[in-house]
């Protein structure tokens, strides 16, 4: 039964165009082709990345942070209150209006004071700028090295200059050592990202990031199996081209270097938008239609690429919104995707003080506590 399932899932007619099959990918004449068991190498690579990342964050990122002047804003802590704390931990971090009213009765504080307590408590849990800087610098280093290494390896290949050549001699394109390492390292990196998703800084676009990572891992692994490696390396290169710029912009943002951050961000936006995504999709989605009749694998891979394209467009939208925000005239720069630090007013009353109906005057105070990340 299981072998029938196996046969059905890995059938030739699903994964290859008409007339080709898994037999075409067997090693022969000294030429090496990608094999399923090669993918096992990803696990030790991912483990290495996790270890290297810890070392990097402690030995390089921390001193760099101090050098660039990354400082955390002083946060007002919520005064300890066992009743509210237990509600925060066990029930909800964002209590409903009804819960706030009942808590207010229980603790003897005003509704406004309860709301403020929760706001401050939520802010306490937010990751520090230093942690965000460490994460961004790790990713920056990886993408920088990956992009330039990939560029060095691909610049002398004929299919770098004429995209259609990715399908030349398909499926019998022999595997090059550089392609093997490029694939394994990228795949290992994304797998390590998935492993560390629990401890990483959670951003507003968390769901989109997960979808992106899963789609990327699926694309890389499956394209390895059916020898779409030439197309795969081009796609990864295009992807990395803008990523290192984005991470460096974030690093400068956390360090407070506004002008540098804005400048790099604008460059990043330009690169992100003009990278040849459409050319890639033409090469994988349109051009092969004139070569082979369609098959399931065609829809599977192009479907995943379209998912990535949609995510790309979504992030382009966010980026354009940010670029507009810091055109001259608007001074604020923040990471659109980071959860906003909720504004604080300067009133220092805690729940032990008696209630008094003072009016909140926020103007000058808000100026000092600008939303910043």
């Amino acid at each position, binding site marked *: *039964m299981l072998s*029938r*399932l196996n046969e*059905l899932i890995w059938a030739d007619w699903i994964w290859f165009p*008409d007339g080709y099959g898994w037999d075409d990918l067997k090693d022969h004449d000294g030429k090496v082709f990608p094999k399923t068991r090669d993918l096992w190498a990803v696990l030790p690579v991912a483990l290495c990345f996790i270890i290297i990342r810890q070392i990097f964050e402690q030995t390089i990122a921390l001193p760099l942070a101090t050098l660039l002047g990354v400082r955390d804003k002083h946060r007002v802590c919520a005064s300890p209150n066992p009743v509210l704390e237990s509600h925060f931990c066990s029930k909800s971090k964002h209590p409903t209006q009804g819960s706030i009213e009942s808590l207010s009765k229980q603790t003897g504080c005003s509704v406004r004071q309860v709301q403020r307590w929760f706001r401050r408590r939520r802010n306490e849990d937010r990751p520090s700028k230093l942690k965000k800087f460490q994460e961004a610098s790790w990713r920056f280093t990886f993408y920088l090295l990956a992009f330039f290494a990939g560029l060095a390896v691909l610049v002398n290949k004929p299919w770098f200059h004429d995209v259609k050549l990715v399908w030349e001699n398909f499926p019998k394109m022999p595997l090059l050592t550089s392609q093997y390492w490029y694939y394994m390292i990228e795949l290992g990196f994304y797998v390590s990202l998935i492993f560390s998703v629990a401890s990483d800084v959670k951003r507003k676009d968390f769901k989109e990031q997960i979808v992106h990572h899963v789609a990327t891992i699926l694309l890389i692994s499956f394209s390895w199996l059916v020898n779409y490696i030439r197309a795969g390396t081009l796609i990864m290169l295009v992807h990395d081209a803008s990523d290192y710029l984005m991470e460096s912009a974030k690093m400068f943002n956390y360090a407070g270097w506004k002008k540098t951050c804005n400048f790099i961000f604008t460059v990043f936006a330009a690169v992100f938008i003009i990278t040849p995504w459409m050319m890639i999709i033409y090469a994988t989605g*349109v051009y092969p*239609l*004139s*070569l082979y*009749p*369609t098959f*399931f694998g065609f829809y599977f891979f192009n479907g995943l690429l379209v998912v990535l394209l949609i995510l790309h467009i979504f992030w382009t939208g966010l980026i354009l919104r940010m670029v507009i925000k810091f055109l001259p005239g608007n001074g604020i720069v923040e990471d659109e995707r980071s959860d906003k630090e909720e504004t604080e007013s300067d009133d220092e009353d805690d729940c032990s003080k008696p209630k008094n109906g003072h009016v909140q005057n926020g103007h000058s105070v808000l100026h000092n506590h600008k939303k910043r990340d």
Partner: protein
Amino acid sequence: MASAFPRCTSVRLPMSVAVILLLMSVTAVQSSQGDKEPVYRDCVKLCVRTNCTGARLLGFESSQPHYMALTGWTCRDDCRYQCMWTTVGLYQAEGYRVPQFHGKWPFVRILCFEEPASALASLLNGLACLLMMLRYRSTVPRQSPMYHTINAFSLVSLNAWLWSTVFHTRDTFLTEKMDYFCATAVILYSIYLCCVRTLGLRRPGVSSMVGALLILAFTSHVSYLTFIRFDYGYNMAANVSIGMVNMLWWFCWCWQNRRTLPYWWKCGLVVLLLHGLALLELLDFPPLLWILDAHAVWHLSTIPVHFLFYSFLIDDSLYLLNTEKLGVKVE
């Protein structure tokens, strides 16, 4: 005369009709009179030999419009299409009734769409479902007890309509399976929805068990059809049976509650309409203008039903929320 086997997807039919259909379906298979016809077979052989080999094939593939290639129309498929019309022409000239080919009537192909009317109708059904899902999400607060279940139901329905559209655009081994399986999934989820509404709100354990049972049934059903044999007769019987369970459960519940729930008639009407309209499937006739057949008419007629069903769901969810707030026990 070939047994006209109706290609039913989401089917809920009264028992007697179901029995008749079952008897009819036992003899019908995927090959019909049309494609058994020697004229048709010779035509296809000749066409493939001349147009679909060597240099002519390359010429075909490079001159084929992209949307045709994208939807999987091969040179052989084109040959079959042309020869089908040749055969139909011959039949009509000699005064015979229009034959079926591979279990289906001959349809005019519009652009890349194999059954344009059914594909359009499926698309419109999907859009109606999407529209009403968005309306539900904007009208009903998240705290309503049935919110997430109904959300999930909408997604399952949308998925089924997507595959129905794809299947009617291009009938292949994979798209047919996806259409059939997703349609079964909708009926099963509808049973689950009914269970949650009638029993699960007070006893969540019961609805979890029923849910597990339904998942098991679905997995077995799909496994049988995939790994053992794709039996159209069995598929039809299975869909009919669960459709009956679905219909009876909803109908009994809303009839019992006709005095307490002012909007009960919406539910009753939806159930009656869906099953009545499904009878349209039985009127199997060659497509009018070679476009409109009974299946397409059925799909077109069920579009307004979505609006009524979701209107019922919205009323019900808001009612549940209100009774929950007041602390009244939910029936």
